[in-house]
């Protein structure tokens, strides 16, 4: 079904572009098609400090291998291009984490003041660092990493028009991607596994619902502004326990329809970056507001050296307030995040990032440390440490309290 949609999109785009290309060809001799390939191969080793909390889960070690490639063709001086980015990961323990995805397979035509992008793509919105509240186009590839920053490719037709008063983007999104979740053997999940086969939709069109979004973004002096409206399938599933012999055995996914308004603002004032993201979402089951706001301050050349130090602080708020474990709601209803980023500015691009997140209602907190450095010209070694603590039973972090782990990875870029 997905393949058929892509096919249709491709044909549509070819039909749309034909007259333009012809006109352009008449004006100038088309340059040759240029091809470029790049990518990375990574190996990753995770170590969980404590024994698993739930019976099926892996105990300490988890290894995996991933490959991502980018194939790129361009012609017409780069005004027409095709990009193809396949991805695959093999995991030693979690079957759900052994997965592949087409991150991008898209055709892009750029004109002076507009662009048409057709196919599978990634589109990021937002300004904050600890939570990406307004980022809504792509589904989260939840098994990839704990931070939710990895996304699944999304089929789309996107027209982007540049005006003096800002860039306007129209999105038609045919076909919905279901979120990926850790499997039975995987760590970083609650007591119940999310059932991949027990999925229901509010829309009778199910996964074939045509979603729509309209976004405006503009820079005025020191201010970068964005606002959008989204109408379509909620990227976050409502998860409810499904019963087997009157005991809960797994979580069932229900994807509702939603309307969402989102706003993002960044003020770049000297060494200060002030950031705000806010959404209003309405679904059949609830209406709520949520915000993520804070700042980043940079010290250039600390300790009389080349080091840059960035200090970050952000607060998350959600109008639904505290929720019981298993009930729908946000984990970040009143959370404070503090971070420090050290950039060494050396030949090896060494970097160190430390963050602490604290749930102010639950006395739960998480600590993350990320360090990375280049070796030679094309290897990157990274070390990540994640510690999750909670003393209260109704906080999700409590369900993950045995999942403290360290991760070492090596990636070769070509």
């Amino acid at each position, binding site marked *: 079904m997905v393949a058929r949609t892509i096919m249709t999109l491709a044909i549509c785009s070819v039909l749309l572009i034909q007259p333009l290309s012809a006109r352009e060809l008449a004006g100038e001799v088309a340059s040759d098609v240029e091809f*470029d390939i*790049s990518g*990375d191969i990574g190996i990753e080793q995770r170590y969980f400090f404590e024994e698993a909390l739930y019976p099926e889960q892996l105990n300490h070690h988890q290894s995996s291998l991933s490959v991502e490639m*980018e194939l*790129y063709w*361009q012609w017409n001086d*780069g005004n027409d*291009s095709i990009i193809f980015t396949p991805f695959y990961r093999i995991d030693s323990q979690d079957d759900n984490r052994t997965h592949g995805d087409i991150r991008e397979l898209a055709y*892009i035509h*750029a004109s*002076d*003041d507009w*662009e048409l992008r057709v196919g599978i793509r*990634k*589109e*990021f919105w*937002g*300004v904050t660092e600890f939570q990406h509240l307004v980022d809504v186009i792509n589904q989260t590839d939840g098994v990839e990493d704990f931070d939710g*920053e990895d996304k699944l490719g999304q089929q789309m037709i996107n027209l*982007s028009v*540049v005006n*003096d*008063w800002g*860039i306007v983007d129209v999105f038609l999104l045919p076909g919905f991607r279901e979120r990926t979740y850790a499997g039975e053997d995987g760590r970083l999940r609650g007591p119940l596994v999310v059932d991949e086969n027990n999925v229901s939709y509010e829309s009778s069109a199910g996964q074939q619902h045509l979603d729509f979004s309209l976004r405006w*973004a503009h*820079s*005025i*002096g*020191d201010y*970068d502004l964005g606002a959008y409206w989204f109408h379509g399938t909620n990227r976050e599933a409502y998860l409810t326990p499904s019963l087997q012999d009157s005991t809960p055995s797994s979580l069932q996914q229900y994807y509702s329809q939603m309307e969402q308004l989102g706003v993002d603002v*960044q003020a*770049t004032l*000297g*060494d*200060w*970056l002030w950031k705000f993201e806010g959404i209003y979402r309405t679904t059949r089951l609830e209406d709520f507001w949520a915000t993520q706001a804070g700042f980043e301050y*940079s010290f*250039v*050349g600390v300790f009389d050296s*080349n080091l*840059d130090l960035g200090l970050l602080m952000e607060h998350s708020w959600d109008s639904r307030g505290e929720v019981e474990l298993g009930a729908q709601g946000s984990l970040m209803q009143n959370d404070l995040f503090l971070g420090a980023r050290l950039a060494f*500015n*050396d*030949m*090896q*691009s060494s970097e160190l990032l430390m963050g602490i997140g604290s749930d102010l209602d639950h006395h739960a907190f998480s600590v993350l440390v990320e360090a990375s450095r*280049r070796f030679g*010209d*094309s290897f*990157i070694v990274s070390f990540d440490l994640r510690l999750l603590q909670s003393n209260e039973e109704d906080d999700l972090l409590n369900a993950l309290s045995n999942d403290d782990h360290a991760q070492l990875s090596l*990636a070769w*870029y*070509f």
Partner: protein
Amino acid sequence: MLTKKIFLSVVSALSLTLVANVSFALTADEQKGLDISIEAKKRDLGWQDNTADMTMLLRNKQGQESIREIKMKSLEVQNDGDKSLTIFNKPRDVKGTAFLSFSHPVAADDQWLFLPALKRVKRISSRNKSGPFMGSEFAFEDLSSFEVEKYTYKFLAEEALNGIETFKVEQYPVDENSGYTRRIVWLDIQEYRVQKVDFYDRKDSLLKTLTFSGYKQYLAKYWRADKQEMINHQNGKSTELKWSNYDFKTGLSDSDFNRNSLKRAR
């Protein structure tokens, strides 16, 4: 756009007044230093736009080397700083990263970074002028376009440098975020091309020396050096910067320097 235009004209009017006011109090050497810089800038006006490839060879004290490969697109803007798009190709892990900058002679530059892994466009602070560019011995400010308003001047001497007759001019950065107290610049008398620069750090000791070589003339007017060698006297490191594929008046316009073009820059 209209507000921006008004803002820009106010800024340029302001900077003109500043320059004009200052010139009342200028000594003969200060006036001559300023005149040389105005003439150097004047001789390089009207190039409209250009593209070029740049390779940086970073070398540390132990002789270890690392390569950076970068593509640059620039657009000349009348009565304001230039617009530029910098596209990174090497090291491979930063391939696809792109940097968009609207520079301003006096006001802070507007800068955006595109991070290809997340497909994220990030507005960044332009305060970091003194920091190293890509781990090299070039600071961000060493690579930004020359604008007369960025410095005050003092003519020091006429001097022979490797057999070329030069003006030796001292430049004092106006921006308090600059990493330098002063620069000493040697420009050849014939063509007003920069031949050598000595950089003095915030403690006023000699930090770096930059030498230009292999000047070529484009469109019978614009001189560009093929090679720039930066030596850091304090840490023993050096960076060799080589330019190739210079192309002028390629037809770039404002629409090649916005968020959309940043996202698909190659």
